[in-house]
């Protein structure tokens, strides 16, 4: 019989201690966590040597299904916060993790997810230093929700942000768009696809360090929920510029393209979990692009558009024959409008 999470695992009693010791401590392999204090204590001195500002980010993760080709909710939870830190130019340092578990979750599955988190954290070079677990009645949540928060250190010379974006900047992405969204559809059984479509879920801090070493970058965002469309609209709004994307330059996995063409889905609106959009001064664009392509997380990197001045901030997508459309901030589901 599979062992399952019960309310006792969140009671603070023996069952919970056992869960923390057997599952979390062994996997996360973290000195701070092992001390089992109410807080992690992090020495400042090494951080001060690395930079002059602390970056601090948090994100909560809910996904159905919790395991999918190319990743799972645990990997997602680590990548999400690592990437939120890294796109600001920070060197990710440590994470907290909060679990909300649904009564009845197989313990074995939880262990798998925790192992995945630990592996991802190791790959990203961050440590999980503090955590919390709650168990809720069956039906009060969907299997497992995870929150991660993280801190990172920003080296003194780095100044990244939407306000740094300038007319003339090139817009770069590190690879194919919409893979995560499509993989999730497939994993949910809503689309039975042949082939091997996987989520792009990955930490991006290594890639970002390679990019920053190659040239100046004005701003970066990770294009998760809402896809590249959401990122571009946020940047256009904050920076007050026009962003023009070229449809033909968008890197799109053939299978995602197939699905999009048949179902009328726009890869620019689809979710990614390992894709960033970078705004790079034109004179650095080629160097940064080359650095991206030399990195395993950026094989399919591409320049997809540029930034120009306007008195009406907007995102445009140029199609095949120079036809243009406005790319709007996604509002819920795509609604047909052709009368």
């Amino acid at each position: 019989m599979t062992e399952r999470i019960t309310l006792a695992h969140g009671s603070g009693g023996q069952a919970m201690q056992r869960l923390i010791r057997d599952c979390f401590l062994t996997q996360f392999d973290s000195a701070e966590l092992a001390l089992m204090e109410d807080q992690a204590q992090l020495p400042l001195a090494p951080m001060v040597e690395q930079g002059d500002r602390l970056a601090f980010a948090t994100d909560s993760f809910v996904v159905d299904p919790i395991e999918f080709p190319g990743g799972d909710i645990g990997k997602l939870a680590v990548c999400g916060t690592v990437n939120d830190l890294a796109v600001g130019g920070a060197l990710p340092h440590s994470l907290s993790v909060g679990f909300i578990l649904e009564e009845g979750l197989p313990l074995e599955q939880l262990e798998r997810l925790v192992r995945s988190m630990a592996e991802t954290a190791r790959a990203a070079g961050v440590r999980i230093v503090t955590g919390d677990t709650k168990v809720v009645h069956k039906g009060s949540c969907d299997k497992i929700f995870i929150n991660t928060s993280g801190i990172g250190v920003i080296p003194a010379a780095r100044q990244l942000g939407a306000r740094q974006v300038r007319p003339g900047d090139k817009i770069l992405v590190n690879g194919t768009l919409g893979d995560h969204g499509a993989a999730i559809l497939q994993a949910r059984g809503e689309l039975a696809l042949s082939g091997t479509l996987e989520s792009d879920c990955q930490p991006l801090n290594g890639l970002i360090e390679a990019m920053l070493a190659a040239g100046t970058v004005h701003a970066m965002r990770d294009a998760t929920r809402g896809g590249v469309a959401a990122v571009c609209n946020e940047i256009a709004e904050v920076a007050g510029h026009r962003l023009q994307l070229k449809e033909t330059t968008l890197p799109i996995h053939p299978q995602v393209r197939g699905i999009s063409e048949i179902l009328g889905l726009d890869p620019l609106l689809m979710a990614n979990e390992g894709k960033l959009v970078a705004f790079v001064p034109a004179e650095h664009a080629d160097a940064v692009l080359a650095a991206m392509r030399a990195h395993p997380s950026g094989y399919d990197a591409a320049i997809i558009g540029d930034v120009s001045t306007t008195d009406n901030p907007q995102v445009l997508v140029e199609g095949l024959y120079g036809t243009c459309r406005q790319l709007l901030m996604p509002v819920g589901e795509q609604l047909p409008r052709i009368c």
Partner: protein
Amino acid sequence: MDGYNGIAIRVRGQVQGVGFRPFIWQLAREAELCGEVFNDSEGVLIRLAQPVDADAFVRRMREQLPPLARLDEVILSPCQLAVSPEAFAITPSVGGSANTRIAPDTATCAECQREMTDPKDRRHRYPFTNCTHCGPRFTIIRQVPYDRPFTSMAPFPLCPRCQAEYDNPADRRFHAQPNACPTCGPQLRLTGPQGSELAREDDALQQAVSALQAGEIVALKALGGYHLAVDATNDAAVMRLRERKRRPSKPFALMALDLTMARTLAHISPAEAEQLQSAAAPIVLLAPKPEGEIAPSVAPGMARLGLMLASNPLQHRLMALAARPLVMTSGNASGRPPCIDDAVALEELGPIADKLLLHNRAIVNRADDSILMVESGVPQLLRRARGFVPTPIPLPPGFEAADGVLAHGPDLKNTFCLLRRGEALLSPHLGDLADPDLFSAYRHNLDHFASLFDFTPALRACDSHPGYLSHQLAEQLARESGTPLMPVDHHHAHLAACLADNGQPLDSAPVLGLLLDGLGWGGTDTEHRLWGGEILLANYRHCHYLEGLPAVALPGGDLAAKAPWRNLVAHLDAACPDWEGRTIPALARLRQQPLDLLRQGIAAGLNSPKASSAGRLFDAAAALLTGVFELQYFEGEAAMTLEALAWQAVARPDAPLPMLSRPALSLNPLWQTLLDGLEQGATPAELALRFHQELAAGLVGRLVHHAQAHGIERVALSGGVLQNRLLQRLLLQGLRAHQLLPLTHAQVPANDGGLALGQAVIAWARHLEGHNP
């Protein structure tokens, strides 16, 4: 006497810039009256010294009105003239002209045409001649008052002879703001595709004509935009234009020199002839003559030809020299809005045209060619732009006080509408706001119209579709300006536009509405919010859903509007799940489509919302019966091809059509009928006709039912699908057979181009009722 020594005649309407004051001056002189006439902010004021028979004067004024003048109101009152005048004079204008009308662009008058062909006239062959009775108006006006310095004629100072005409009340060109002659006015220029000048003035025109005769493509600068012209009798030349414009099948409009030439190409009824020759000079959709010499690639597969007559001096001259019909299609590159700027025109039309015939008068306001059809003797506008805009549309009784309403219109075929001083001002047809250039033109036009017509919105209306760009902009502007915003459901707006178009009073009892179009945001009466085939019970204020077509998935969302086969899958899966087992050749191509993935998408609700769309139903039927299966190259291609096919099965198009009678519309038997018919060897044309007949019969059956249930006899017909003449005629015939009174569109399009008027009148009616958004 009571101290008054004169009579004031207040005249409101389209009375400025149309030769009204010199007309009054002449009228007064003939009657040997003393007094004055002048323009003011209300229109024109006439003061006549006593003794005078003012009633007789007004009668003659009404009888002999100049061609472009329109009277809205004439009010007589006694007045005091300061000094007793000894003659009749035109005195200087007083005040602004915010409350007067701006005339639309108007076809060249007979007198100006005659002068052009008179070798002794100083305007012989001059392609920019005009007078107070004709010529450009709306398209050259930058701001009011309508005076030359505020038009694109500003850079052309009048020569002494033109100035003398301008100053002489007895002259046809008295105060004609665009007055021009070869000495002082705009001039032609012919360039190559890169902009290098090839010739000027009449040489330019002659060379352009030679190029056209040789089969070349020439871009022409017209009044409200550019045209691309090519010899319509030269199939290779037309095909070349199709390739360069990347426009594989959308029909091209034609231009004929005059009615005589037009009659060699198409059957033209007296009502159609009247429209062709009207001052607005629209494109009229006509039945082609099979023996006409029009190249087959001009309008492949279409039942109608779009044809207009030469209507500006340049076109008269060009057509007379070319002596053959020309394709005269709007000057835009594929997927781009029509240009109005020379530099943009060169950039976008240069790659398409072999030569460009340009001139140095700027186009201020874009106005595409208007399009209309005469159906059952009634002219129905399908696109309202050049020649009609900005003539106000009168509002029905009860709307006299309507003011301050701005209706933002739909996203596609956008026009917006101002309600101002009891009239509706509709902007010219713009297009799909998803195009960023059109969207910024839309924003610009909203401001431009507000300033031209001295208008400040106090209440805004918009379509209730949350994804419409017009909706989102209206929300933003309403927020920024603190004006209330009233979202209006798409089909209620269509219906109200039809009511207003038919002069139905504000407080009229509810009517039935039959709304057939592609798609619109519907009310909460149904689970699906996307409507397009509904029977509604409504007046200006309220709208109740009675019933509608069954909701069927739109696989791929907006892609369904482009790819007819998607709708065929959705409809067949819903109506005849066994269709894949049938041995019908027409279904073979459907089986080859990616049905699995599409069905998974439908099942999972992935971008496959359900909609009760008549337009998509036509697309589905076209995918079964016509060649328009994979992709529509232009909006309505599938439905228009299906209609054209159905007409082939109509033995006598002018006689009453063969009708069916059905108590209700049920799609399942309809699809079974079509599939059975194909299996049994019926021709696609017969089945296309049957489709129209069944659809009309079922809809009439339900309308008759609801009419009896609610004691109603009026039925408003609106929505873009009503452009289908076969369907419209079947519906009218069926409704009349049951003593119902159908209301169809005339002055505003049944398609989304008329929607803004409906939004505006609904907003005002609800505002009067105290409904606060």
